[in-house]
């Protein structure tokens, strides 16, 4: 990669369609914006950028580099993700006028079922409404029927194209800086200079290596390995067994962090988080009685499709510079939850900055970085929240108290559901971790939990009956 000599110095020779305005670089009529990656972050950025530019009467040209069509089943068309659009994001998108049609939503989720060794408990959506979307990011698992699935990523990419963006079905092979502007070259030798380059590649793409040049002062985010797989059960069995609930597991298995099974049409998706996640951990999880009893006949079917994608667990260092910004998983993401929601937030913050402020390092530092920083700070609080979850996971006494408290709240119509709301927001990613932690610090919360821990430890004071079929 060519060293960005002019990128480094204040005497950058700026030519063409972007100019300095009050010391910052600004997009003007005819400015060209390149977006590397056509996943949710890239598409959200494009949608918001073009909408905001249009409101100002600013004419921008956007190229999205995305070689995939998202129409291939299996890995070729997949973005290796659990595929959950959180409750809060579904609402925000609806308020933005972006609705998810039934063809894109594999299953609307209206409840969570918490599975533990001391009982299961269903946590119903606060409004008893399906407001969480289980989606396929691509075109479904490798073994799905040869019918076209309307994948989430493709839906957003089509929306970007309908707003005037050009989808370039090529890979970005290299990025170099020419006179202070980024130039993207594709494998066929075609090259385009841009006034702003947006990196929305995620952390599982080789494209992240395009920016290892120390001159950018960008350092890629820290990542953690996850496990995602699909089981094919058939739509009727999925409906009868898993229903419209997401199934989460609080199990005392060494190295296991978070586990969830999500119903999606004729498949269910299993998402696992854990330390040094490997096949042994996956096998230990699948061998546990709590997991096996979720499946018909207590038998785990063969994997239809599986992968070990990485997720962002620590923010990138300085994910912005003159004429360049990293968004979504490439920059900052919410810890363990709501990755698509993080893509939405960072993409919108970058689009706002580019249209209303400028595209210089200082513009991004002042207007884009605060949104990232807010996510980053919330992630620090998240580590405390997950630390507490970890304690509960490894203490049967605490687990029994949590399950009992939740079950009693769910049985009482109109109760304020302190534990239910904490668990709901922790599992769904619907509220900032800061809010969740605050709720647990109200005096009545620890008192109620302590009472349920004591009562749950007494004979006949346990939680709900085990092995219940929650799919009804």
């Amino acid at each position, binding site marked *: 990669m060519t060293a960005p000599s002019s990128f480094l110095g204040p005497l950058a020779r700026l030519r063409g369609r972007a100019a300095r305005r009050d010391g910052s670089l600004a997009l003007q009529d005819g400015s060209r914006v390149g977006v590397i990656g056509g996943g949710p972050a890239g598409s959200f950025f494009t949608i918001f950028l073009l909408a*905001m530019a249009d*409101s100002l009467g600013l004419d921008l040209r956007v190229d999205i580099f995305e070689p995939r069509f998202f129409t291939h089943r299996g890995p070729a068309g997949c973005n290796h993700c659990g595929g959950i659009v959180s409750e*809060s994001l*579904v*609402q*925000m998108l*609806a*308020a*933005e*006028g972006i*609705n*998810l*049609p*039934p063809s894109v*939503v*594999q*299953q*609307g989720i209206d409840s969570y079922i918490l599975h533990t060794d001391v009982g299961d408990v269903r946590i119903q959506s*606060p*409004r*008893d*409404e*399906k*407001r969480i*979307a289980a989606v396929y990011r691509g075109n479904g698992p490798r073994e799905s029927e040869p019918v076209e699935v309307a994948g989430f990523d493709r839906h957003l990419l089509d929306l970007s194209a309908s707003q005037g963006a050009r989808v370039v079905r090529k890979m970005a092979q290299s990025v170099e800086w020419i006179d202070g502007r980024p130039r993207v070259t594709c494998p066929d030798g075609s090259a385009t200079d841009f006034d702003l380059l947006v990196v929305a590649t995620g952390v599982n793409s080789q494209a992240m290596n395009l920016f290892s040049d120390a001159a950018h002062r960008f350092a890629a985010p820290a990542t953690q390995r996850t496990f995602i797989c699909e089981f094919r059960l058939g739509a009727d069995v999925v409906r009868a067994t898993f229903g419209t609930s997401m199934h989460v597991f609080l199990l005392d298995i060494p190295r296991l962090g978070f586990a969830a099974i999500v119903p999606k*049409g004729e498949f269910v998706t299993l998402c696992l988080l854990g330390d040094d996640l490997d096949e042994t951990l996956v096998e230990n999880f699948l061998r546990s009685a709590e997991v096996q009893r979720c499946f018909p006949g207590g038998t785990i079917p063969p994997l239809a499709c599986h992968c070990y994608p990485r997720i962002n667990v620590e923010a990138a260092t300085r994910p912005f510079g003159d004429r360049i910004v990293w968004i979504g998983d490439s920059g900052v993401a919410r810890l363990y939850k709501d990755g698509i929601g993080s893509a939405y*937030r960072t993409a*919108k*913050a970058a689009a*706002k900055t580019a249209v209303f402020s400028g595209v210089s390092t200082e513009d991004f530092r002042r207007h884009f970085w605060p*949104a990232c920083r*807010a996510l980053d700070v919330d992630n620090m609080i998240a580590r405390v929240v997950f630390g507490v979850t970890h304690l509960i996971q490894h203490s049967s006494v605490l687990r029994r108290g949590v399950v009992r408290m939740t079950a009693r709240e769910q049985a009482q119509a109109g109760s304020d559901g302190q534990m239910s709301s904490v668990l709901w927001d922790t599992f769904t990613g*619907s*509220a900032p971790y800061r809010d969740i932690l605050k709720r647990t610090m109200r005096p009545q919360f620890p008192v109620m939990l302590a009472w349920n821990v004591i009562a749950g430890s007494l004979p006949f004071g346990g939680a709900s009956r085990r092995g219940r079929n929650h799919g009804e």
Partner: protein
Amino acid sequence: MASNALGRVYADGETIVTQGEAGDCMFTLQEGRLEVLVTLPGRPPKRVAVMEKGAIFGEMAIFEREVRSATVRALGEARVLTIDKKNFLRRIQEDPTLAFTLVKMMSQRIRHLTLGVGERRVGPQGPRTDGPERRRL
């Protein structure tokens, strides 16, 4: 209506919002059609609008603490998604542009109402002055 879809399905004639009740959310119509009914004292409910897919309604409850100004009912089966006031207002604090879609929609409604009022006032006989009868409307 697809069973996998988001939101909640309302049967034909089922009420989503009732005039006069307090509200803590707004709604988006995902699928189907809805009718908007206004009841004036001593009069039967009158249909004032029909909403199509994509419509946002109930947004007044987000911005002011007034009761619902109209009743909204399903015209045939309809699928509606609820947007919570608390979450929405919190997000607006972080991202004021989120309100832009609503402002735009409310602006269009005002324009529509203005045109409607104009059409009533300027009939085939030209401009009319408000008499007592018209003032009551």
